[in-house]
Each structure stands twice: as structure tokens, then as C-alpha cells.
């Protein structure tokens, strides 16, 4: 009986401590209940919208999709494609692969030649990830981190040195990248790389470190940044980063933020939260069903004013137009 008592005591102690899930952004069963039936080719990374075609990365390659057609541009079972991006000139798509020997390689797909070739230039050595706004990061064996930009496949800008030696997180926006990490002194720092008039104007700005989960450029010359406590900061107002607004109901990843005029829309569980540069914030349903809200992967500019392409993971790709936060207009949504 003594051995049984010991077993029961050990189990009771275990039960008191074991409920843990430290890795994920969402609870496991919440993730399941928010999953959606697969009704379209799965989108794992949205790449962009060019010439009335939406481009995205899926499990088995890179696809293009329009109103009337969907086709796979690059088939890739093995090696698998980890991440991809248009080059700045939009003539190529660069993509990073992981081979069976766990070696990463960079390839370029050219739209004119309609083929893809391996890129072996030094600039692409030790590439960690390619982001969908033409930025990518390399990390050498001595932990030297470089932020690079792909103007075109033969002209990679490599002059963006970083003070970060240990990467924590990288966030992206349309024309910029926010890199969080530690410097050589193990201080937490944040660096914002952005351009306003093409790649030759790329600049690095050191900003006050917070545990940011998203950021977006707004018309008027600044960025709204949001941290993991749902506090919104405006980098254009002061250097102390006082809180401009606090929003609720927010997802802990903000890939799907976008901006309209002076407003930045952050994605919440039930609504989008348009936050104005002065801190005014609202809740606004963009016309998507709640289940689709959870399925949104990314929202990218379509090219026309206040028109966006909404990429969902399993439920298709939509065009969102006519959004106007000043009159609480949620715009119209049409599947493409």
C-alpha cells in the first residue's frame, strides 16, 4: 500500500504543475476551434499583387491567382520553400529553400524567362529568412547579422549593418522592417529599416525597445507601433515613446495590419482596430465573418488608393476596397 500512496502523491503533485504550453501564441484547442475548412489552396505566406494577380507561397510551391485562374509557378516538394519575396523591381521572385541535407539555398524565379535559377552570390550566403517586402537577413558563423535588400537579382544592397548580435524577432511592413534583439553588450535594442523613395533611401533608425508585435507606416511620415500589452506608440511624436492608445481584443501577431491615411488597422480577434496617429482608436468590423477574421494571414496593398488584398490561410483571397475610417466605412469585399 505504501508504494501506491507514493504513486498517488507524485501524480497529484504533477497534476498541479503540468498544465503548460509555452511555445505557441494561442492555446492549442483555441487554435483548433479557430481552424477553418480548407476551401482553397492554403496560403502560408502572402507575396504580393501584381498585374491583377495575387502571388502566395503554399505547402507545395509558389502560386499565382486571379479572378479566372490559379496556377503554380514554382513546384517545390523537396527542397521545401521556407520563405519568398518579390524583388523591388518586381521582375523576379526570390525564394529560400531548405534541402534534405538541411542546407539553405536561394533561387530566383524570373517572370520574363519563366524559369528559376540558383543564386550563389556572397550576398545570399547564410540567409535566414526572406521577407515579403524585399528585405532579407543573413547571419554569419560569427553571429554577424546583416539586413539586406533585394533591388533586383543582380543588385543586392548589402550596406545595412546592424548592431544586433542576437535576433529575437523581426516584424515587417510594406516598405520597412523592424528588427528586435540584443547587441554585443546584451542590451535589448530595436532597429527600424525603411525607405521612402526607393532602395537608395533606406535608412536605419534606432528606436526605444518594447516587445513590439506589429507596426505600420501611416500617411504623415511616421509609424504606429504596438507592443504585446496592446499599447500603441507613435515614433513621430516624441522620443520617450509614451502610449498613444491602448486597444483590446488583439491577436499577438500583427502580420495583417495595414494603413489608410492617418489610421493604422491592427487585427483583433473580433474586429480590426483603426488607430489614428493622435491615438484615437475604434473597433470596426471589416465585413468579414468572425471565422474568416481568424483565418487572415496578411493584408497587402493592391496598388489603388485604399484598396487591399486580403490573404486567408484556407478560405481564399479577397479584394477589400473603399475602407474609410473617418466615416466608419468597412468597405466592400470581393473574392478573387
Amino acid at each position, binding site marked *: 500500500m505504501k508504494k501506491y500512496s507514493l504513486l498517488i502523491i507524485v501524480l497529484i503533485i504533477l497534476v498541479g504543475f503540468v498544465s503548460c*504550453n509555452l511555445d505557441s501564441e494561442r492555446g*492549442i484547442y483555441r487554435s483548433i476551434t479557430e481552424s477553418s475548412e480548407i476551401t482553397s489552396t492554403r496560403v502560408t505566406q502572402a507575396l504580393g499583387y501584381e498585374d491583377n494577380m495575387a502571388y502566395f507561397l503554399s505547402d507545395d510551391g509558389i502560386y499565382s491567382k486571379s479572378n479566372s485562374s490559379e496556377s503554380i509557378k514554382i513546384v517545390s516538394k523537396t527542397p521545401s520553400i521556407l520563405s519568398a519575396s518579390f524583388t523591388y523591381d518586381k521582375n523576379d521572385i526570390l525564394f529560400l529553400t531548405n534541402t534534405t541535407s538541411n542546407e539553405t539555398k536561394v533561387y530566383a524565379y524570373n517572370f520574363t524567362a519563366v524559369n528559376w535559377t540558383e543564386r550563389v552570390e556572397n550576398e545570399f550566403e547564410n540567409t535566414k529568412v526572406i521577407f515579403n517586402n524585399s528585405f532579407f537577413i543573413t547571419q554569419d558563423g560569427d553571429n554577424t547579422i546583416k539586413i539586406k535588400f533585394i533591388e533586383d537579382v543582380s543588385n543586392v544592397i548589402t550596406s545595412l549593418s546592424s548592431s544586433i548580435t542576437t535576433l529575437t524577432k523581426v516584424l515587417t511592413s510594406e516598405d520597412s522592417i523592424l528588427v528586435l534583439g540584443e547587441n554585443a553588450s546584451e542590451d535589448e535594442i530595436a532597429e527600424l529599416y525603411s525607405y521612402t523613395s526607393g532602395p537608395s533611401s533606406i535608412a536605419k533608425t534606432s528606436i526605444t525597445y518594447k516587445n513590439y508585435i506589429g507596426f505600420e507606416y501611416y500617411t504623415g511620415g511616421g509609424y504606429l507601433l504596438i507592443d504585446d500589452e496592446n499599447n500603441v506608440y507613435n515614433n513621430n511624436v516624441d522620443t520617450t515613446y509614451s502610449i498613444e492608445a491602448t486597444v483590446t481584443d488583439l491577436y499577438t501577431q500583427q502580420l495583417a495590419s495595414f494603413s489608410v491615411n492617418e489610421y493604422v488597422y491592427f487585427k483583433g480577434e473580433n474586429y480590426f482596430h483603426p488607430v489614428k496617429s493622435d491615438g484615437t482608436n475604434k473597433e470596426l468590423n471589416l465585413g468579414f465573418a468572425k471565422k474568416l477574421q481568424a483565418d487572415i494571414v496578411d493584408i497587402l496593398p493592391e496598388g489603388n488608393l485604399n484598396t487591399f488584398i486580403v490573404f486567408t490561410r484556407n478560405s481564399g483571397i479577397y479584394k477589400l476596397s473603399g475602407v474609410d475610417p473617418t466615416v466608419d466605412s468597412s468597405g466592400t469585399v470581393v473574392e478573387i
Partner: protein
Amino acid sequence: MKKSILVTIIMIFLFTGIGFASTNYYEIGDQTFTFQAGIDKSLFLYFPVTDEFLTGENTKTDLGGYGSISYSSFFTPSLSLGGELGYSFNYSIERKLLTTVPMLAKLNYYLVQNGKFDLTAGVGLGISFTRYDENLFVTPLIQLSLTPSYFITENWGIGVEASFANSYEFYGSNSTKHDDSVITGFMPISLKMSYRH
């Protein structure tokens, strides 16, 4: 709905116990080994913070499978204590795999035992390793079971086990995932092969 499921399960156990009386076949020190395999169905998910109670299709999981091996030893003629190691799987509607590996200490009460036929009510307490979409977590697990078994020979028997498995994924009020705290209910039903001596 939540209460009615729980009450039904408790009533099944109570009435089953009242309805039978039997002589003891087993002796202290007897042992049983079992192998079982069957189906696993999600009954409900309850998110207490947001007060959402989801059943049926709203749990977003399909019918899955369950298998386990177990061992127990009698410490009275009607009670045995042992352990069970299992494996279950279900697919979400997104076709991603949810797997659990329960490890239980299990107390079995023999409501009926006459040498040919056993009816056992069991209570298991332990932990469950759960994996979904590259994420792994560990939760406490309580399992209630009811098992009728028929012994074809002196040592070998077959039966059917119906269980109610209840686990908790809990996040504190300071966690960003507090709203995702959930109580889960699954029902594995399996064919069971037993060896006793």
C-alpha cells in the same frame, strides 16, 4: 448541457454498481494486462473565461483513434491499481493532426466478477502529452471508464471499454492566452483484450 453530460456519466456509474452483486473471483496479488484499440470522439470543449461551450462540429475535430496498454494488480478482491499508457489522434477540419499520449495511474473497481464475466468501473488520474501544429503541451487528465469483459479461457478475455477523458489547458490571468483556457471532454471507445493470472 454541460451539467447533463456530467450527471449522465455519474448516474451510469452509480446505477451500474447498484444493479449487480457478485462473489469475488479475484484474490489479492492477481494481475491483469490489457491491450485496447478503438475510436476517439470529441464530446465538448468548454472555455470558462469566455463561457463558450462547444459540441459536435463546433469542436472542429473529426472522429479519431485510441489505443493503449495497461497493467494492474489487485490490492483487495474488488479493487486493482495500475497504470495505462495510451495514444490517441484526431484530425482538425484543417487536416492537422492532434495527438495525445496519456499516462495514467488507474484504480479499477470490479462491479461484477464471476470468472467468466467482469464489469469494471475505472478512474484514471495522470498527465497527457498533447501535440498539435508543432506545439506541445502537458495537461492533467482524468479518465472515467466502464468495461464489460468476457473471458474465453481462464486467462484471456475480450471486452469493450467506454471512457470519458477530461483534461484542462489552463492559463493564468496574467497570460496573454488566459481566454484560451479550456476544459476538454473526449470519449474513447475501444475493443479490449485482457490477460489475467
